[in-house]
C-alpha cells in the first residue's frame, strides 16, 4: 500500500527502518535473515519499514531484494534507492523492477559517499542527483523514461525524499527540499534530529511547503554513541543534554531510558509533523515503549 494514502487520510504515519544483512538470504525458507527478524518486531507498531540501500556505502544485500523479502512476509517496505552506485539506466530499471515486484513506496536519495564506507576505491557514480532522480521517477509514472521514450504500463509508487533539518545554512537545504517538491516528491522523512530548536526552526520554515513530513529519530543507545555520531555521522549532531541523560543510568537500564527519552522527544513534537520515522538501530523491541511514551496509540499504526 502506498503510504501517501495514509497521509491523505490524515493518519499519523509511523515508519521504522532496517538495514539488509551483509550476505545473501538463505535458500532455506525457514531461516530468516536478521533484518527480517528486526522488521518482524516492528511490524505490529509501524505502517511501513524503510529498507536501506548499502547504507553508509557499506556493501550489503540489495535493498530491493530485502524489500521484496519483507513484502512477502507481510511487511510494507519503503525501498530506498540512491544515486551513488547506479547511473540513470540502472536507476530507472530498478524503479521499473521494484514496481514489477510489488513495491509501492520508494525513498529517493543521493546516498552517502563511497569514502564513508567499506569500498573506498570504488568508482562513485552520482550520474544524477536526488532532485533529478525524483523528476525521472515522476516521468516514469507519467509514462516516459528520462529520454522521453514511452514505457509500457507505467509504475505507480509513492515517491519519498529526505531532508536534513540540522543542515547549516538551513535555507540552502530548504532550497533543495523545494526543488524536490517541484520534481515530484510526495512525502519527506527527516534525518535524525535531537535538538528542539532545530525542530522548531525547521517546522516554522516548512509549514507552508504542503507535503507531509515525518520527523526522523535515531535511538541514542549510549553516551559513546552520541559522541561517535557527533564525530563521524555526517549531518547529525547530538546535544550535550541527550548524551548526559543516557549516560546517567547503568548500562542495563539504557534501553529503557533510550526509549523514554525518544518517546518524550516525539511527544513534544508530534503535533508539528504528519508522522515519525524511527530508526531503532536493532533495538526494535522497545519501539512499542517509545510510542507509549510518545502518547501514540499503537493501534493507530495498524
Amino acid at each position, binding site marked *: 500500500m502506498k503510504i501517501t494514502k495514509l497521509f491523505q487520510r490524515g493518519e499519523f504515519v509511523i515508519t521504522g527502518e532496517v538495514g539488509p544483512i551483509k550476505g545473501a538470504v538463505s535458500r532455506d525458507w525457514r531461516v530468516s535473515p536478521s533484518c527480517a527478524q528486526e522488521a518482524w518486531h516492528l511490524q505490529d507498531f509501524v505502517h511501513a519499514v524503510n529498507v536501506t540501500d548499502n547504507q553508509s556505502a557499506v556493501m550489503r544485500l540489495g535493498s530491493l531484494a530485502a524489500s521484496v523479502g519483507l513484502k512477502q512476509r507481510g511487511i510494507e517496505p519503503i525501498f530506498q534507492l540512491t544515486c551513488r552506485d547506479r547511473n540513470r539506466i540502472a536507476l530507472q530499471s530498478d524503479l521499473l523492477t521494484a514496481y514489477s515486484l510489488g513495491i509501492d513506496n520508494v525513498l529517493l536519495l*543521493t546516498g552517502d559517499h563511497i569514502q564513508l564506507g567499506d569500498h573506498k576505491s570504488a568508482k562513485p557514480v552520482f550520474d544524477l542527483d536526488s532532485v533529478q532522480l525524483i523528476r525521472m521517477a515522476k516521468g516514469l509514472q507519467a509514462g516516459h523514461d528520462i529520454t522521453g521514450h514511452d514505457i509500457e504500463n507505467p509504475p505507480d509508487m509513492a515517491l519519498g525524499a529526505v531532508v536534513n533539518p540540522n543542515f547549516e545554512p538551513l535555507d540552502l537545504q530548504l532550497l533543495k527540499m523545494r526543488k524536490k517538491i517541484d520534481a515530484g516528491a510526495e512525502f519527506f522523512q527527516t534525518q535524525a534530529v535531537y535538538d528542539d530548536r532545530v525542530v522548531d526552526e525547521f517546522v516554522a520554515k516548512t509549514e507552508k511547503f504542503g507535503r507531509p513530513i515525518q520527523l526522523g529519530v535515531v535511538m541514542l543507545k549510549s553516551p559513546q554513541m552520541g559522541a561517535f555520531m557527533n564525530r563521524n555521522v555526517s549531518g547529525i549532531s547530538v546535544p550535550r543534554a541527550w548524551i548526559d541523560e543516557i549516560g546517567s543510568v547503568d548500562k542495563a537500564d539504557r534501553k529503557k531510558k533510550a526509549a523514554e527519552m525518544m518517546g518524550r522527544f516525539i511527544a513534544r513534537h508530534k503535533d508539528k509533523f504528519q508522522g515519525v520515522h524511527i530508526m531503532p538501530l536493532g533495538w526494535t523491541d522497545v519501539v512499542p515503549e517509545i510510542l507509549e511514551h510518545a502518547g501514540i496509540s499503537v493501534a493507530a499504526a495498524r
Partner: protein
Amino acid sequence: MHATIQKPITEILRFIRPGEKVFVVGCNNCAWKCHSGGPDETKAMAERLTRRGVDVVGYTVPGPQGMSLCKLDHTRKVLQQDYAEQTRRADSFLVLGCGQGVHTVIDATDGAMVHPGCDTIFGGETVSESDIQEFCSLCGECVIEYTGGLCPMTLCSKQLLNGPCGGAEKGMCEVDPERPCGWVLIYERLRKLGRLELLDAYQPPKDHAKWSRPRRLEVSPFEATFCSQAGRVTVSNQD
C-alpha cells in the same frame, strides 16, 4: 595547467629494463610549475637514474620557460633535430610531464617507447607558487553561470547540480571534514553577490556524452569544432 607529481624513483626504475638506454624529457610549462619536470628536475632525474646504474643518453626540456612539451611541432624539432644524436641512441624516453606530454613524445619520435615519469592528477589553478588547486573537471558542458563561477562538478564530492546533500557538517563536506562543502561555498558566494535567485532553477542531468573519452577540438582562427560522443559542435568566434 595540468598538475603532475613525480612518480617515486623506485617505480620509475621498475619501468626500465637492464641495459636500456633512456632519454629524459621534461616540460617547461606545467611540469616546471609543479617541480615535477622543469629544467632542474629533469637534470636531477638524469643524475638520479645515472647514480642508480641507468644508462641515460641525454636529457632536455624543450623551449624557453613557458613552452609546453605538448606543443608537438616544437617538441619534434627539439628531439629530432637539436638532440638528434642522443635521441637516435635512445631505446626509450622517460617523460617528466603530463599524459598529454607523454603522447606528444610518442608523436614527436614517430612512435618510440615511452615511460611516464609522473602521475597526472588534475587541471588546476596556480593559486601560489606552492599551491595548485582544482576548480574544473573538464566536463565539456559548463554550468557555472548559475553557481557564481564555482564548479559543483569539482567542489562537490558528489557532483550534485541542484543543491547540497544532507551530509555537510558545520559547512564542511561529509567526505572530508577539512574541506568546505562546495554547495555551502556556492551559496555563500551568491548570497554575498545578491544573486541567490540563480539557484532556483532546476538543473537537468549532465550530458555525459560530452564527457566521453577521447575528445577532440578542431580549431581555426574563426571557429572551433568540439568532437565527442555527443557529436560535432561547431561554434564561431566571429559575430
